[in-house]
């Protein structure tokens, strides 16, 4: 469980990135933190594994305050996959890359072997075991980065902008994968501004603007409230847009799912034509 109590954070250069954030993320929750670039999303999640410590207020993971333990200790529980895989890949082979964290955490050699194979298999990378990560395509490198974190099986997983530069199929695979992890009761936190992706995943949405939380709730509610979205400079998903525009005809306004949209529209059209 992640508890954030009235957290303020100011960077050494004086920029106030977080201004009074309070929230609780329970075990097994799937959360999307959204907002414009510079809204403080990444700053906030960097508090969850102790990379940043609050200037004021406190953050606790499973009841332990982040200021009391090292990043390495927290990282065992909280896996963090950075936006750009090139910021972490350095090993000669994909296999070594995945083993890196496991070695840091002091796993036994036999366990490391098992975990590496497991993670390779999970992300469909087994055939690249002995390949240099630098020879892989962008999408594959992203998967190696993800595998290198999943290998130690953290309870909480943070993905920073996982959809940037990804094509539709890659996003679809990622979505399936997240849902699979969710089924295993992992806590998943994604930082993103990809509205269409969030609309398809339907997680809890936390909307940020200028270091503050402006809304917190179900995706179908937050992504269909134009007043709130405007504040956070977010364009609503297309399905939601269609339903705003039709709201004068008495349609509900909280629709983001294409199949739900289809059902409602079909009903309305059939009623007219019958």
């Amino acid at each position, binding site marked *: 469980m992640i508890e954030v109590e009235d957290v303020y954070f100011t960077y*050494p250069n004086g920029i106030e990135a977080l201004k009074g954030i309070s929230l609780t993320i329970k075990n097994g929750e799937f959360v999307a933190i959204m907002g414009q670039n510079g809204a403080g999303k990444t700053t906030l999640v960097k508090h969850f594994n102790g990379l940043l410590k609050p200037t004021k207020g406190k953050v606790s993971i499973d009841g332990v305050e982040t200021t009391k333990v090292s990043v390495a200790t927290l*990282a065992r529980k909280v896996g963090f996959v950075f936006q750009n895989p090139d910021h*972490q*890949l350095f090993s000669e082979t994909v296999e070594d890359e995945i083993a890196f964290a496991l070695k840091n955490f002091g796993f036994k050699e036999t366990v490391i072997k098992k975990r590496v194979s497991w993670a390779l298999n999970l992300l469909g990378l087994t055939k690249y075991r002995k390949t240099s990560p630098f020879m892989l395509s962008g999408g594959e490198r992203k998967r190696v980065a993800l595998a290198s974190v999943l290998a130690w099986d953290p309870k909480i997983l943070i993905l920073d902008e996982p959809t940037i530069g990804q094509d539709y199929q890659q996003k679809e695979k990622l979505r399936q994968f997240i849902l699979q992890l969710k089924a295993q009761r992992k806590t998943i936190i994604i930082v993103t501004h990809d509205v269409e992706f969030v609309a398809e995943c339907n997680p809890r949405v936390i909307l940020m603007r200028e270091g503050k939380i402006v809304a917190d709730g179900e995706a179908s509610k937050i992504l269909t409230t134009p007043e709130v979205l405007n504040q956070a400079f977010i364009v609503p998903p297309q399905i939601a847009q269609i339903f705003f525009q039709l709201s004068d005809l008495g349609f509900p306004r909280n629709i983001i799912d294409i199949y739900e949209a289809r059902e409602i529209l079909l009903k309305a059209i059939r009623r007219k034509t019958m």
Partner: protein
Amino acid sequence: MSVFDGLKFRRVYSPIHNLDPRIKFIYVCAIFVIAIMFGELLPLIILFTFQIPFVLLAGVKREWIRSMRGAAFLATIIFLTNFVFAYLGARGIGQSLENAVAMTLRFIVLIESFSIFFLTTSPDHLGLALEQTHVPYEFTFAFTTAVRFVPVLAEEAQTIMDAQKARGLELERGNFLKRIRNYIPILIPLIVSAIRRSLELAEAMESRAWGATKKRTNLYVLKMHKGDFILIAITIGILAVAIYIRLYLPIPSINQLLANIN
């Protein structure tokens, strides 16, 4: 977003910032020469005070004080060695002290003038000055690009460090050798990314007609303004006065002055 922020030049406008960097550089050199000419305390005090109006006019007091503080350690060492050697050389305490203070002040004057130059000259201004003193464009381009990308790379190094720490890397763990090895997971991504960046940069330059003609033109041209002529006059003036004093006037030491008052 980090300690590397100090590397970024802050764009400020002041009469000193607007001066032609070439003239400023000549001025700094003149101060340098004068400081070397005099070993006595009195002229060095005058030289030191003389430059304070420049700092105030440029509005860089805080940055200037910070850079002076940075020089404090070296200044202390210079003071101590000079004092000890003069004293051991069987001079009186008063004279040794004065001599040591003078040597320290000479160092401080040098740092002072150079820091004024760098605090008030933007890198692009400097690049422009290089270009117009017929330094090949490739060279000045490399210079401005380096200035431009140092903060970017510094920020990137920070991100890479965070990414590896998030995978359990502890930089401060182990003995000396192990600690050095701890930096490999940071250095490799940094180098790879710098290479990738430079490729993209080269691509962007090519796409914007790099090397289309030998006669490259420039959007900005350095022109001498009133302030620059004033600075030239000041420079020649103090240089002339300094040479005159050096050659024809005896310079009393502070000890002598104090003795005379009594």
